[in-house]
Every structure is written in structure tokens, then in C-alpha cells.
């Protein structure tokens, strides 16, 4: 006969253990192992793994490829974070005006988001490679006559445009939900007090949708940093590795060059940067939110 206490403990174990086991095997152990790998030297094949001390880390400080990829990623994150939020907020504000076609518009803007990044990248390879030259020939506009994916600057903007097209609808949905939570009487009160459209937006709406802004900035920064699919499928990191995101760079180092331990050091640095930035961003934004 089991006591009540052991039976409760057993129940607890049965309910919690599966989550704990899968978490440990799939996330916890690989994470610790990545840290361990970053201090080791291993080519992925030989049976013995040697120690490397901190040499992987000192090496990557002077690694031109890594630094280039870091620069690209930072530039990409800043550009897409701003554009995504501006475009999404503009779309949400317009849809919030109770347009008749609002539902169909919402669907159209959101639709690209449900398709995976790799498929999106391939679709745009076709748009840029097939449609753009045609537009260029028909209109004579120089911008469409260039082969975008052969120029670093154009490839960068191709990635930015496709990212905005792909995800703006998602950010819009989050802003739209927040805008619907702004009380009508507050806006009316401000209007009676003589506040114009811009003042109402700036002093009433904007402070009230700060939580949505925190979320959207967080998502844009974190998704931007982790971007892989589009770089893989659309530009393949090119031309000349100019659009190789950190995520793609780490993948290529590990799985095409077999630099497992060196890539692990890069992956750990990648984690530290991402964790630091997102924690700071959320902390700063949370403090500025208005309590309702």
C-alpha cells in the first residue's frame, strides 16, 4: 500500500518527466555540449576530440568571414526592424479605419506569412530573375535591368524587401489587435479637447499600443538575427558572401567545411549577442509601457 505522499510524487513524476527528458536530450545537453565543443578541436569524424583552450575564440576575433557576416546581420536587423514596424503599423492603422474590404485586405497582407521562408526565397528567385528583367525591358528603368542577385547592395535590398513582404502581415495583425484595444472614448475625449489627428495618434494611440510595439520589436530583432531560410534560398549568401547571415555562416562552417568545434564557438558568441540584445530591448521597452 502506497502512502499518499509517494503516490503524489509518482503522479508528479509521470506528468513532468516526459517534458523534462525531451528538454534535456534535445535542448539542454546539446547546449552544454556546444559550449564544451567551443573549447575543443574536432573535425567531426575522428574518434578522439582534443582540447583547444580558448584558441577558437581568439581565432574568430580575426576571422574576416565571421566579421563580414556579423556586419551584414546587424545591418539587416536594423533595416528590417525599422521597415517592418513602420509598414506594419501603417497597414494596421489604415485597416483600423473600418474599410469595407478590410477582411480581404487583411488576408492578402497576411497570406505570405504562412508560407515557409525557403519556398518564399525560391519564389523570389523567379520574380527577381524572370519578372524584373521584363519590367526593365518594358519600362526602360535601369533599376530593373540590373541582375539584382549579382550585386551586393541589390542583394541586400532584395532580402529586405522580401522579408518585409513576407512578415509585414504578421506584425500588422499584432498591431491591429492592439489598436482595437484602444478605447474609443479616450480618442473622442482627446478630439473634444482639440487634439488633431496626428496629436491623437502621438499622445493617445501610440502610448497605448506600446506593449504591441515591444513584442514586434522583439520579434523583428530576434527573427532578423536568426534569419537563415531566405539567405539560403534567395541569395545563397552571395554574391561573394556579402549576404551570409550569422545563422547561414555557422551552418556553412559546420556542415560544409566540417569545422564543428570552431563553428560551435561562433554559435556560442551568436547566442550571447542575441541574448544580450533581446534582454536589453525588452527591459528598456517594458519600463516605457503605460499601465492600463
Amino acid at each position, binding site marked *: 500500500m502506497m502512502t499518499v505522499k509517494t503516490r503524489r510524487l509518482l503522479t508528479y513524476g509521470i*506528468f513532468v518527466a516526459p517534458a523534462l527528458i525531451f528538454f534535456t536530450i534535445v535542448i539542454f545537453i546539446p547546449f552544454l555540449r556546444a559550449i564544451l565543443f567551443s573549447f575543443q578541436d574536432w573535425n567531426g569524424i575522428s574518434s578522439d576530440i582534443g582540447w583547444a583552450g580558448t584558441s577558437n575564440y581568439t581565432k574568430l576575433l580575426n576571422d574576416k568571414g565571421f566579421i563580414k557576416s556579423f556586419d551584414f546581420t546587424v545591418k539587416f536587423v536594423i533595416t528590417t526592424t525599422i521597415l517592418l514596424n513602420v509598414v506594419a503599423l501603417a497597414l494596421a492603422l489604415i485597416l483600423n479605419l473600418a474599410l469595407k474590404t478590410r477582411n480581404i485586405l487583411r488576408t*492578402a497582407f497576411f497570406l505570405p506569412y504562412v508560407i515557409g521562408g525557403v*519556398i518564399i526565397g525560391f519564389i*523570389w528567385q523567379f520574380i527577381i530573375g524572370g519578372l524584373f528583367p521584363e519590367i526593365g525591358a518594358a519600362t526602360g528603368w535601369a533599376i530593373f535591368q540590373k541582375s539584382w542577385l549579382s550585386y551586393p547592395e541589390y542583394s541586400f535590398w532584395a532580402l529586405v524587401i522580401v522579408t518585409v*513582404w513576407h512578415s509585414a502581415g504578421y506584425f500588422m495583425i499584432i498591431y491591429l489587435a492592439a489598436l482595437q484595444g484602444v478605447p474609443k472614448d479616450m480618442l473622442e475625449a482627446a478630439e473634444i479637447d482639440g487634439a488633431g489627428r496626428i496629436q491623437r495618434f502621438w499622445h493617445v494611440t501610440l502610448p497605448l499600443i506600446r506593449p504591441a510595439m515591444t513584442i514586434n520589436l522583439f520579434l523583428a530583432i530576434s527573427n532578423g*538575427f536568426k534569419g*537563415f531560410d531566405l539567405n539560403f534560398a534567395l541569395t545563397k549568401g552571395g554574391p561573394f558572401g556579402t549576404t551570409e547571415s550569422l545563422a547561414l555562416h555557422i551552418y556553412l562552417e559546420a556542415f560544409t567545411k566540417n569545422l564543428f568545434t570552431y563553428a560551435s564557438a561562433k554559435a556560442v558568441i551568436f547566442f550571447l549577442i542575441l541574448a544580450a540584445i*533581446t534582454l536589453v530591448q525588452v527591459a528598456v521597452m517594458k519600463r516605457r509601457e503605460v499601465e492600463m
Partner: protein
Amino acid sequence: MNRERYSVGKLVLEIIMLALGLLFFFPLYLTIVNGFKTYNEVVTSTTAFPEVVQFQNFVTVWNQINFLGVFMNSLIITVIAVVGILLISSMAAYQLVRRPGRLSQIIFLVILSSLIIPFQTMMIPLVKVAKDLNIIDTLHGIILLYWGFGIPLALFLYHGFIKAVPKELEEAASIDGSGPFGIFFRILLPLLKPITTTIAILHSLWIWNDFLLPLITLSSIKNQTIPLAASVYFGQYTNEWHLAMAALTLATLPIMIFFMFMQRYIIQGITAGAVKG
């Protein structure tokens, strides 16, 4: 607000927005249309209609990449992975919420904080772990890996939701002689339906569209998922746009149909998931 002036401005705005909406849809439209053309037609003009609507490209692609097979792989992986994540996470969240204490708190916080680790940090040792466990390049293997990766977010969302569910129902059932399993499956689980829908949608979209994990763990052709199979047409030297567009149309069709039918739930789920996450 003065409505007379408004209606004209609104009409203009409406037309502008509709044009923008069409522009948003245009890349998808082009993909579908070009899937029906011959190679020469695609090269001549990407925007023109096909001269004859023919399904030859789709037949070719269907056979070349064994579309039915890869579709089934994607479906099996997504469904079993999501159901497993829902079950494992809701069970754990139930006990972690209802039996508070230091242990529960530590478990919850450790799992939660892993949300900040990017996949790329874990992926290199993960391949080694999967090899050591002999589950690399198998469907059940990748499903087990998804169970692990899906747990943190699902557990977090369930945890928050269960905290707001009153305990009284469970206590009443307990007095009536129900055990913990009965309480969980018959009383609590039905109450969790709204959050279960949210989590199911978020995780289905993620797993269905995921590319990197299948790329590094599924190497055999027979285990390929849809995104992996579609990438065959975008290799270094292939230039068969007509087949590529048919393949992309096939690849996007299932998720578009799913979206059309589930739109309301998807939008609700995504909003709820983002706001709580």
C-alpha cells in the same frame, strides 16, 4: 467625425489599399500561372497567360519528387510532432501549476529560459546526439527532436493558461473519486481548448515550414519533407523554371488551403501566441 467628407477619402484609400493587396498577392499569382506554362512560354514572358492550360508540369513534378510521398512525410511529422508537444507540455504544465514549490519553479524557469537560445547554437551537437541515439535520418527521430524543441513555448503558454483555470472543478472531481489522470483528461484538457488551438497552430506552421532541422537530419530522399524536395529545382545548374514553379505551387497549395479554412483560428492563435509570448 464628419462622415460626408470621409466617404470620398475612404473610397480612394480603399482603392489604393486594394491595389497594394493585389501587389502583395502578385508573386504568388505568378508562381501559380507559370506552373501551367511550357518552358518556352515562361522564358518569353512571365506575366502572360499560358496559351494552353495543361497539367503536364504538375504530373512531371509529382513523379520526379514523389510529391505524394514527401507530402505524407511532412504531414506525418507535423501531426505527430504537434500532438506529442501538446500532450507532453499540457501534462507537465498541469502538475507544475497545481503542485507549486521550489522544484516546480526551477523546472519551469530552466525550460522557459531556453527559449532565448537560438537553434543554431544547439544544432551542431544535436546532430551528434541524434547519431549517438541512432535516430538520425528517420521520421520518428525528427519527431522526437521536435518534441524537445516545441516544449518550451508550449509549456509556457499552457502554464499561463492553467494558472487562470479555477481549481474547484478538479477538487470536486477528486472528491468524487477521480484520479489524477481522470481529472487531467476528462476535466482539465477540455477546458484548455482555446490555448491548445493556439499552440497547435503556432507549432504546425513552424514544423510544416521548417527547413533547417530536416536539412541537417534527413539525408535520404525517402525521408524528405516538402521544402527539402522543392529545393531540388533550385540547384546550381538547373534552370527549369516551368517545373520549378509547378513544384512551388504544389508546395504552397496545402498550407494555403489550410489557411483559407482556418484563417480565423490562425489569426487569433498567432495574436494570442505573440501577445503572451
